[in-house]
């Protein structure tokens, strides 16, 4: 609901309709948008408009393909739709019911699932990191997980393109890994919480740096520089954040792509020859069918396998692209434990993006007795999140909880992003319960392995030591948090042990593609969004090359 009568409710009815789409840079603004008829066989439908779908929508349209991008979420204009509020902004999250179980159930929602045009990038913390090169061959080189069918040198080039397209603000010199080009925008200044991380890292003899972030430090197009309001994970109301919503999606529309918001795809149809023929989707109160020559699934590690499994038919009784039996398996999340303490100084950690500094020391140091790596970053949880951490980790309620919350402006914290190993028992399956669309609700089963637990304990010990060295008091651990997702449709070099090839093309159905975090064979110890973006850009180039050779 808005005070201005010409502004609309993004949930009441689709906005991208009638030959126009929202201009996200202007309150009440519109852009002309090409539209396609359901019976028109478009070149590509892309299901999901986040870090995987967004770049493909833009790049395929720019190459002259007809493209429709579907998203189940709303098409927001941040300037008119986004409040500075932790509860209201949950409208950006995928909050439809999912059943969680296993020994360490993954709490779904804002930490890992977006439901909006732009996907999770509308609420992500903007941390834009490259994989360590060895992770693309972690099985061969490091002795765990599985190898990717991608070469890190090629990825290095696509990372640079992704960083340019997202105007990443980062340091002049990045301390770890092979040489990389200068970041397009200068690094953001450190807030108090980031300074504490830096002092702690230096006390340990570890390198640290300003975190490369997808929010601009100087104007870019219609994006103003970041004002450090600190609500990044609840949507950027000024458009400083370089989400898919303000970068690739408008690019795609300008190049002729169509976006369908509030459009939930429920099933991919296949024809007598076994190829995908289009998608069944729910929009404006009824089910519709869009014909397509190619279908790209980019719904992330839960919705992607859910859709593939739900599309099972007589020809593919175990779901689409699932001859390997691996669709839904090898789900991975990242350990996101933290250590918190209190400083004498006022820190006011809510100011600025939450993760302004980072140390990747333990991603590049192999002298340890477990597999995988992790980084840690500065923290700045807002009151609701902070209260749930204090209540959950310290079992506080009653007067002690209120008293502890009074120290908010003096709190400081370090939070890890850690690599969890793939395990086929961690998986997405379908329950017999159905959601508001009549689609079967997914069940997400997750248990930490011994290696995961060893890595977490190592990180907690290191972060605690770091906070102790800077004089933090009343230090405590948050032991149970996780964030990003990956796996469930892994890429690989052969059809028996993977779901897609290096081009994100499914082994079983040549015109069915999967391009999002689902295709990760391993998780890595950094936030995954930049890697998803880089792979999406690569996939667009590969499709162009294949089309030129007549191999689509």
């Amino acid at each position, binding site marked *: 609901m808005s005070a201005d009568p010409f502004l609309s409710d993004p949930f009441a009815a689709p906005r991208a309709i009638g030959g126009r789409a929202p201009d996200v840079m202007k309150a009440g603004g519109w852009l002309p948008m090409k539209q396609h008829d359901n019976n028109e066989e478009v070149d590509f439908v892309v299901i999901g408009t986040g870090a995987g779908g967004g770049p493909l929508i833009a790049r395929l349209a720019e190459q002259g393909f007809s493209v429709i991008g579907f998203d189940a979420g709303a098409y927001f204009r941040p300037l008119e739709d986004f409040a500075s509020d932790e509860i209201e902004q949950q409208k950006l999250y995928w909050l439809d019911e999912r059943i969680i179980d296993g020994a360490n159930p993954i709490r779904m929602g804002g930490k890992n699932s977006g439901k909006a045009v732009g996907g999770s990038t509308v609420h992500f913390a903007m941390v834009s990191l490259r994989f360590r090169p060895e992770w693309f061959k972690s099985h061969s080189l490091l002795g765990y997980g599985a190898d990717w069918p991608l070469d890190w040198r090629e990825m290095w080039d696509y990372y640079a393109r992704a960083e340019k397209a997202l105007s990443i603000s980062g340091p002049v010199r990045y301390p770890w890994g092979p040489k990389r080009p200068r970041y397009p925008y200068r690094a953001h200044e450190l807030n108090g919480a980031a300074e504490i991380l830096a002092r702690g890292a230096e006390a340990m003899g570890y390198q640290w740096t300003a975190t490369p972030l997808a929010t601009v430090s100087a104007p870019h197009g219609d994006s103003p520089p970041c004002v450090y309001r600190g609500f990044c994970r609840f949507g950027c109301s000024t458009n400083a954040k370089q989400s898919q919503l303000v970068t690739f999606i408008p690019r795609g529309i300008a190049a002729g792509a169509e976006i369908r918001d509030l459009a939930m795809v429920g099933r991919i149809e296949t024809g007598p020859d076994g190829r995908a023929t289009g998608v069944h989707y729910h929009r404006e109160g009824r089910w519709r069918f869009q014909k397509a020559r190619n279908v790209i699934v980019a719904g992330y590690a839960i919705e992607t396998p859910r859709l593939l499994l739900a599309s099972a038919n007589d020809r593919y009784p175990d779901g689409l692209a699932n001859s390997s039996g691996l669709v839904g398996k090898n789900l991975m999340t990242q350990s996101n434990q933290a250590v918190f303490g209190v400083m004498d100084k006022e820190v006011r950690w809510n100011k600025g993006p939450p993760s302004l500094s980072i140390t990747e020391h333990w991603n590049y140091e192999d002298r340890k007795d477990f597999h995988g790596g992790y980084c840690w970053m500065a923290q700045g949880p807002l009151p609701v999140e902070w209260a749930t951490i204090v209540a959950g980790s310290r079992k506080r309620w*009653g007067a002690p909880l209120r008293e502890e919350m009074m120290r908010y402006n003096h709190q400081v914290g370090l939070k890890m992003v850690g690599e969890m190993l793939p395990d086929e028992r961690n998986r997405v399956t379908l329950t017999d319960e159905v959601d508001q669309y009549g689609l079967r609700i997914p069940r997400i089963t997750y248990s930490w392995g011994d290696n995961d637990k060893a890595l977490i304990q190592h990180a907690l010990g290191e972060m605690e030591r770091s906070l102790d060295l800077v004089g933090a008091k009343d230090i405590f651990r948050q032991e149970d948090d996780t964030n990003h997702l990956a796996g469930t449709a892994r890429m690989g070099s052969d059809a028996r042990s993977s779901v897609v090839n290096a081009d994100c093309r499914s082994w079983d159905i040549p015109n069915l593609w999967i391009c999002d975090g689902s295709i990760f064979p391993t998780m890595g110890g950094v936030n995954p969004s930049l890697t998803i973006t880089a792979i999406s850009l690569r996939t667009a180039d590969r499709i162009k090359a294949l089309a030129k050779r007549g191999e689509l």
Partner: protein
Amino acid sequence: MTDRYPGYDVLAKRRTPSWNEPTRQVVNRRLAVPREPRYLTPPLFTVLDAVCQRILPQPTDRPPVPLAALVDDKLFTGLQDGFRYARMPDQGEAWRRGLAGLEEAAEAHYRLCFVKLSGEQQDDILRRMERGELSGGALGDMPATLFFEHRLILDIVTVYYAHPTAWSEMGYGGPASPRGYVRMGLDRRDPWEAAEAHDGDETKARLENGFVG
């Protein structure tokens, strides 16, 4: 509890560049939440109200945050978490069973209804639930500890710390768009942030908080 941020009222910024129009509307709706239950039955709502007073006891020198009404509003509007533990029913059913379970436990241990118990007795019942010592009866097969930690505590704590009264008492800057913040380093405060009363300077903090806006 001492007043750490004397005279600070985050709502004084409501008409400043720290609050955009969507934020004003969202917070206005929250402040105007109906005080009568629309989801829970009146008897269960009374139990919820008593529980809220134990989980987040509030000072008497200011209007209380209507915690029970805000939790009921969450259930009424059906704001979801995005997940459900396989062993848990949906949130509305969980609350109905959980509150009825507390009522049963009060009767069993003290032969009184929950709201008639002293604060210490209510805490005792709540701790029994937290430790997983309550089972069966109205709770059914719902694990008591899981309900306590991931439904009861989470919902009550969330609505309290989403309220401007809580933001003011903890010195949180609150909504910050489009103005944001400028002074980022340690021990730096923007003039539109809460001033903290350090030893002996409550007057200074109160004065500075009078200019927050």
